[in-house]
């Protein structure tokens, strides 16, 4: 299969969808002629023009609200935030308006809106360009939240988002954007709420999110050399969250660690742990463990930045602790 990057994969899905559906338009800063800070819309302006590739002033609340209204009126907006941190200026619009319109209209309005942008800690991006925040959105009724970890899933989940009539957060980790991998040509959709078992094993289950999937796979390789078999699961979407796949794995392994770069309190790991405890308590041979990024804003210096994010070594240690329980 041909190999393309994560960003090329989403661009392919977007371009194909825009060719088919004239009600799709993209808004954001520099997504027009410039083609996006991360090349997420490269070449589309020449094909589809300024109304469909709409450069905006720097007013996130304004264009989130505008896109909410456009979706209510029958269009299919995509907001490209560049950095997801910028979305926070529009939280009231998103949570009070975008998320609630379908419910408040008793299903008469639709809200086909994609909210995409890069997330995550890395490249000394510092505190205002390193946020992820997906646990917050997963908490709110009305949103889907997708966290692709590889180019094929990026295309597949983005295709599903483009066809969804619900608002979808599409969170692209900055350290993954230039990753290359095999991606199917033509239409390719990955449904929401279906986790991927990215490595099969029998001794412990590790759930890893977004870029943490890679560090965890490296750790699993180290353990394989020691004769320890780890199962690694990538949920791919955290809303909806596929707990069934995790439960099936824990049934086999009896041990569970959740590795997530975002904050531990009230996070995705807490949700997974609660659900697995409630439904799979008898399968557990050890307390469920979590490994998260530190509960702090993101510092700039590489030495500080490195200290707050899970990496291969801290993941290996967390797995050793889990196996020793």
């Amino acid at each position, binding site marked *: 299969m041909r190999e393309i990057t994560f960003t090329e994969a989403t661009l392919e899905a977007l371009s194909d969808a825009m060719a088919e559906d004239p009600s799709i338009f993209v808004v954001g800063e520099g997504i027009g002629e410039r083609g996006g800070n991360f090349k997420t819309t490269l070449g589309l302006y020449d094909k589809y023009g300024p109304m469909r590739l709409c450069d905006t002033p720097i007013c996130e609340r*304004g264009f989130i*609200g505008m896109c909410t209204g456009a979706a209510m009126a029958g269009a299919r907006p995509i907001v490209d935030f560049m950095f997801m941190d910028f979305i926070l200026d529009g939280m009231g619009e998103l949570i009070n308006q975008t998320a609630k319109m379908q419910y408040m209209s008793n299903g008469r309005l639709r809200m086909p809106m994609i909210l995409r942008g890069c997330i995550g800690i890395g490249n000394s991006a510092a505190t205002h360009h390193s946020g992820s925040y997906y646990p917050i959105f997963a908490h709110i009724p009305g949103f889907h939240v997708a966290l692709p970890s590889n180019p094929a899933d990026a295309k597949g989940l983005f295709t599903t988002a483009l066809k969804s*009539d*619900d608002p979808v957060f599409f969170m692209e980790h900055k350290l993954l954007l230039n990753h290359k991998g095999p991606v199917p040509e033509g239409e390719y959709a990955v449904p929401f709420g279906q986790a991927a078992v990215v490595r099969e094993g029998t001794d412990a289950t590790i759930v890893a999110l977004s870029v943490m999937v890679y560090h965890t796979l490296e750790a699993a390789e180290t353990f394989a050399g020691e004769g320890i078999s780890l199962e690694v699961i990538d949920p791919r979407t955290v809303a909806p969250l596929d707990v069934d796949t995790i439960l099936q794995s824990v049934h086999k392994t009896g041990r569970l660690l959740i590795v997530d770069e975002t904050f531990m309190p009230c996070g995705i790991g807490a949700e997974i742990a609660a659900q697995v405890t409630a439904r799979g308590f008898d399968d557990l041979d050890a307390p469920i463990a979590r490994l998260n990024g530190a509960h702090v804003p993101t510092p700039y210096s590489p030495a500080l930045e490195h200290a707050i994010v899970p990496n291969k070594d801290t993941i290996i240690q967390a797995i050793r602790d889990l196996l020793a329980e």
Partner: protein
Amino acid sequence: MNTRTKAETYRYLYRTMKLIRSVEERLARAHMEGLVHGACHTYVGEEAIATGVCAYLQDDDAVFSTHRGHGHAIAKGVSPHALMAELYGRETGCSNGRGGSMHLFAPEIGLMGTSGIVGPCILQAVGAGYAAKLMHTERVGVTFFGDGAVGNGAFHEGLNLAAIYDLPVLFICENNLYATEVSFSYASRNPSVASRADNYGMPGVEVDGNDVLAVYKAAGEAIRRARNGEGPTLIECKTYRMRAHAEGMGESGYRSQEEIALWKDRDPIKTLRDRILEDDLIATDDLKTIEAEIKTIVEEAAQFAADSPWPDGQTAISHVYQEE
């Protein structure tokens, strides 16, 4: 609307304003009787604005309104039955009991929602304008908002976006001088809302919001511009809320009795009625017939609301997401 004769227009405007007023007076009573379960912000005194603007709108023109939205809903075509049933919390309400006074929805006739948050309706109307331009329709987006929204960032961002993209949007500011109980003269150094249109490069018009004919005329021109691709307009309608901010609240002294009396003299419905009789456009008996008819409709609506079933509790979790 443009095909109506002058007398027909006056009849339409009078009837609509009177219907809004009568429904709300009945709702105020129902609120006292405990039949309205949550908040109830009436539009009494401001009826000329919704009436004058919505007179031009088609079902597919999109209206985005406020917490004080009963008048916009009725002027856009929501029946008094569906409105009253909504405030009574019934299945037959326009939002099937999900919204109450502040969350009225009838998207099938272009009432895209009233809102409990000040500001977002401005941005959503811009979005409706964007969708209209994107999809090459003649639809317009209309937002009503109070003077309280003018100091909100949504006003600035929304007007700017509509202006730079030349969108078909009407920004209708209902300046009733008070945001709840904070006066606009306190909240703004610039006493004019309309003048702010200059900042965004769009026309700004100030009208007497208690003169339905003045509103009707200004809105007509703005809608003509919008449908012609000439972009948005800001219209400031100076008006006054004749009842408290919300039912059950008294006058705490934030506005003087003289001021209240002055504006009650300028009641938009009475003003139009006097003018109709002065100009001999509709006979007194005809007006009385309209008034009697409205009285019947409102009593029937109240009865309908009271007799309507409660929504099924099982449905409270549906429609969070699109369902197959």
